[in-house]
């Protein structure tokens, strides 16, 4: 596995929407390399004809009857919201200046 650089960690943090500080980046990058080195052994273990497993107990087409059951009220759904108004979640602006 290629070495994961500090810049790559910064890019991954950006993709994951986490504002990592410089100190955190310095700390994380070498730790991630140690972990990645230890999992790199996975390459070449399985032949091409081995199917992947995503769930241990495979179930397909799980249906239930389409009946109306009580759900959360708007008040309940909003009860943990950092901010709400008019029975809706209130969020910071979602468009940038140029949009």
């Amino acid at each position: 596995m290629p070495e994961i650089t500090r810049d790559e960690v910064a890019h991954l943090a950006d993709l994951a929407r986490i504002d990592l500080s410089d100190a955190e980046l310095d700390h994380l990058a070498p730790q991630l390399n140690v972990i990645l080195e230890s999992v790199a052994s996975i390459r070449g273990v399985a032949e091409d004809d081995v199917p992947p497993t995503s769930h241990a107990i495979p179930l397909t087409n799980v249906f239930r009857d389409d009946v109306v059951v009580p759900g959360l009220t708007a008040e309940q759904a909003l009860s943990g919201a950092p901010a709400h108004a008019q029975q809706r979640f209130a969020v910071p602006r979602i468009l940038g200046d140029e949009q």
Partner: protein
Amino acid sequence: MTSIQDGTRRTAAELADALAAGEVTSVELTQAHLDRIGAVDGAVHAFLHVDAEGALAQAGVADERRRAGKPRSMLDGVPIAVKDVLATRGLPTTCGSKILEGWVPPYDATVVARLRAAGLPILGKTNMDEFAMGSSTEHSAYGPTRNPWDLTRIPGGSGGGSAAAVAAFEVPLAIGTDTGGSIRQPAAVTGTIGVKPTYGGVSRYGLVALANSLDQAGPVTRTVLDAALLHEVIGGHDPLDSTSVDQPLPGLVEAARLGATGDLTGVTIGVVTELGGEGYQSGVLARFHESVDLMLAAGAEVVEVSCPHFVHALAAYYLILPAEASSNLAKFDAMRYGLRVLPDGVESPSAEEVMRATRDAGFGDEVKRRIILGTYALSSGYYDAYYGQAQKVRTLITRDFEAAFAKADVLVSPTAPTTAFKLGEKLDDPLAMYLNDLATIPANLAGVPGISVPSGLAVEDGLPTGVQILAPALADDRVYRVGAALEALLAREWGGPLMDQAPPLVEEGESA
């Protein structure tokens, strides 16, 4: 019952009998456990939230039902604690994270709803590694839990709070969750019982997902019979969880009672070659081999089985788990619930800037490590080489289990490679921390059930060790039968349960 205080030393099955016989009330029992929490939890810190008022109210109603001759279940009125990763309506649910500080869910997880339906008063929520990421409970944003056997040591993780609460006699029963060993490893290092049911055997609805293809809730107790009683309350099909298995549970309590005779005639036990030897503490291995010898003497046939791909389980797990976790934790976005942090010095910040600032402030180091790792494993260019390979290795591990279960009814190994280590010892060495789950991870990858049963104290440090018993998927009854047998055989050797050997915790108000 000679005194109410004795109630905290008794098993859930004994308490259920005492309640049924009218020897004690649920209010008395609940208060006795609350008193114990008040006396020792300052030192142990197993609880993040104690709901004395709510628990006593539930106990009062349970007593009314008992008086009317209409208990809701055998465990009606027996108090319980719940790991803080399960949603509890009206009770805070933090997952050990700052990002959910103060969040009170508007609904109950199915496991919690079933506890309420069966009449168990919920004493509170137990501490855990943040979002169940860790093996020591030191990654909790609210401070670590301490091991009741030695307060300078870790109680295991991620469910260290549930295991420590049970080991400290603060509660007879607790709920844990196990993604890579988070029920079984804490059980091993605290001298308690922990069961990871078959994947899909207990509903995940309302369980805040770490890795949804691996997570499974299960019982944390001091006896195998208590675990079976609790498992029968929480288990079974749930239409709210699409991965829930639509089959009746096998008779778990019946299996535990059968096992308690200590007879293992006709049972074949497979010792897994790859789960032992290098990397395992000598005292842990010594106690493990003693347990195997006892089971052999009790009529079991013992065979050695090889599961060659288990050596790759840890690597597969640390690709699959972060990948799923990074997706699951994307929902903590500061918009609908939980923490919202505004970035410093930004006028009118955008939603995305708020999201970034919140996730930096709200997540701890280990969570960030795993989100970044998962994002990496899922990124194009690496996906096939790592995540895709890990999924294939998962198939090979499942095949190893199938081959092993063709030769043996159950598989056994030490639960954890070492006894409880000192607080802080592995905190900044992620890889050393990950190795704690070496023996428990294969069961999660294959979805099979497992139990950890105390096997004694390691000679070198006098700390508890555990034996893990694994069974094929949906054959959870086997782990109860063999687990109860081993428990009974060891109790005969020791003249009582291992917990009788635990040093007493100094209660507040007593002189040390």
